[in-house]
C-alpha cells in the first residue's frame, strides 16, 4: 500500500496544535504557516504563532456526497472559520446536532481527520465544535471584523 506518512508527519504541528505564523512587521497572522508574507514579502519579519483555535463560522455547508475518503462520514458539516487572530481556515464542525449557523462561535477539538484504509496510518488533527453557551461571545476587536464579513 502507499502511505502519505511523511507528508502527514511534516504538518503535525499545524494539524494538532494550529501552529501558524505572525508577521511582526504588518501584524498579520497566517494559518497554515507561510514562508513569505503576502503583504511584506521579503521584508517580512515572521515568527511562529500558536492559534487559540477559537473563531467564528463565516460560511458553512453540509456535505451529503463526498469524495471516496469521506464517503462513510456523510452527512458532515464543513465551514470556513475566521480564527480570532484573523486568518480564515476550512474545517469540519462536529458535535453540532442542530446544524451549523453563520456567526456561530466555535472551539478546536482533537479528532481523526482520515485514515489510509484499514492498514495505513491514521491522520489526527483539529476540527471545530460549537462553543459552550457561556463562552460564546467573541473578542471585541475581531467580532467586529466578522460582522463585516457576514
Amino acid at each position: 500500500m502507499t502511505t502519505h506518512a511523511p507528508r502527514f508527519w511534516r504538518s503535525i504541528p499545524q494539524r494538532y496544535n494550529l501552529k501558524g505564523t505572525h508577521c511582526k512587521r504588518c501584524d498579520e497572522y497566517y494559518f497554515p504557516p507561510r514562508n513569505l508574507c503576502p503583504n511584506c514579502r521579503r521584508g517580512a519579519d515572521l515568527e511562529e504563532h500558536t492559534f487559540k483555535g477559537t473563531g467564528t463560522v463565516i460560511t458553512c455547508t453540509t456535505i451529503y456526497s463526498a469524495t471516496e475518503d469521506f464517503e462513510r462520514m456523510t452527512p458532515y458539516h464543513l465551514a470556513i472559520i475566521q480564527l480570532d487572530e484573523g486568518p480564515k481556515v476550512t474545517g469540519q464542525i462536529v458535535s453540532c446536532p442542530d446544524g451549523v449557523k453563520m456567526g456561530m462561535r466555535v472551539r478546536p477539538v482533537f479528532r481523526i481527520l482520515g485514515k489510509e484504509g484499514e492498514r495505513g496510518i491514521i491522520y489526527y488533527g483539529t476540527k471545530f465544535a460549537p462553543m459552550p453557551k457561556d463562552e460564546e461571545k467573541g473578542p471585541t476587536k475581531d467580532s467586529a471584523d466578522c460582522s463585516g464579513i457576514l
Partner: protein
Amino acid sequence: MVLGIISYGVYIPRYRIRVGEIARVWGDGDDISENLNVFEKSVPDLDEDAITIAVEAARNALARADVDPARIGAIYAGSESHPYAVKPTGTIVGQAIGSSTSFTAADFEFACKAGTAAIQACLGLVGSHLIDIGLAIGSDVSQGAPGDMLEYTAAAGGAAYLIGSDNLAAEIESFYSFTTDTPDFWRREGMPYPEHGGRFTGEPAYFKHVTSAARGLMERLGTKPEDYDYAVFHQPNGKFPIRVARKLGFTREQIAPGLVVPMIGNTYSGSCLIGLAATLDVARPGERIFVTSFGSGAGSDAFSIRVTDRIDDIRAGAPSVREYIKDAEYLDYAMYAKHKGKLRI
C-alpha cells in the same frame, strides 16, 4: 516526599445509546437495564478513538491546573483499544498537548486497569525524582460483539491524571495491587471483539481481585471503610461495584458520587478513573477517597487518596464529569452501528 494528583481531566463522547434500544434489536427483555443497572452508554463519534479521547482528557487535565506541558517527563497511556497495534498512543498525545520532546512514553494494556497501572508507573518515576510530572491516561472505545452481553455496557471515555509531588490537589497515600493469572476476558491479536468467560468473570475474577487488593491496602494502612468519605470501584456494570462495596463494608453513599456506569456504561480503562474524577469533582479538602480498579486477566490496584485544599482552586478549570454526562445526544441502533464501525462495507 508526598506524591499525588496535580490535576485531572476527563472526556466522554456526547453520543449515547439506551440499553433498551440495544435490547430491542436482540430481542432481550425490557428488564436488562435494571439487571445490569446500566441505562445508557456513551458512543464515540465517527472520528473519535482512544487517542482522541486521551488527548481531550489530557488537555482538560493541563487546563484545569494550568500546568506547563514541558514539565511532563513520562506519558503512559492505558487502553485496550489502542488504534494501532504497533505505534504508540502516548507519542500522539504528547505532541497534541504540546509536551517537550524530553519525555518517555509507552502504552499500557491491562484490560480495564491499564490506566491505574499507568498512575503507578508515574508514581514510581516521580517518587524516585527521575521525572517532574507524569501523565497517566486511561481511555477506551471498547468493543462488544453485536448481540453479546458486553454490547450493553462497552462504552467510550477516558481520564487523564497529572502525577507529581508539588501543588497536589490530592495526595496518594499508598497503593496495593493484587494480580493473578485468571483468564476471565481476553482478545486475541487481530480479533475485533473480546471474548469472556461469562459468569467466570464474576467471583473468581472481579470480586476476588477487587476485594483482595482493597483489603490488602486497608491492612497495610490500618484503615477501615469508615475512614473514607468516598469509594470508587471498577464499574463493568452497575451491579458489581455496589455488591463489592457492600462486601467490603462501604456504603451506597460512599460510592454514589463516583458511580457513573448507569449513565455512561463501562469505559474500560477510563471506568475507575472517571469514577475517581467524578468524586474529585465534589470532594472537599481533607476528605479521603478509596479507589480500586480491576483489569481482567487479572489484577486490581487499590489506592488511598486524600484531597488537599488545592482542589477548590482547580476544580472549575475544566469540564466536570457531570457536565459531560449531561451533554448527551441519543442514537438509535442503526446510527450506533455506523458510529462503531459495525457496518462492514
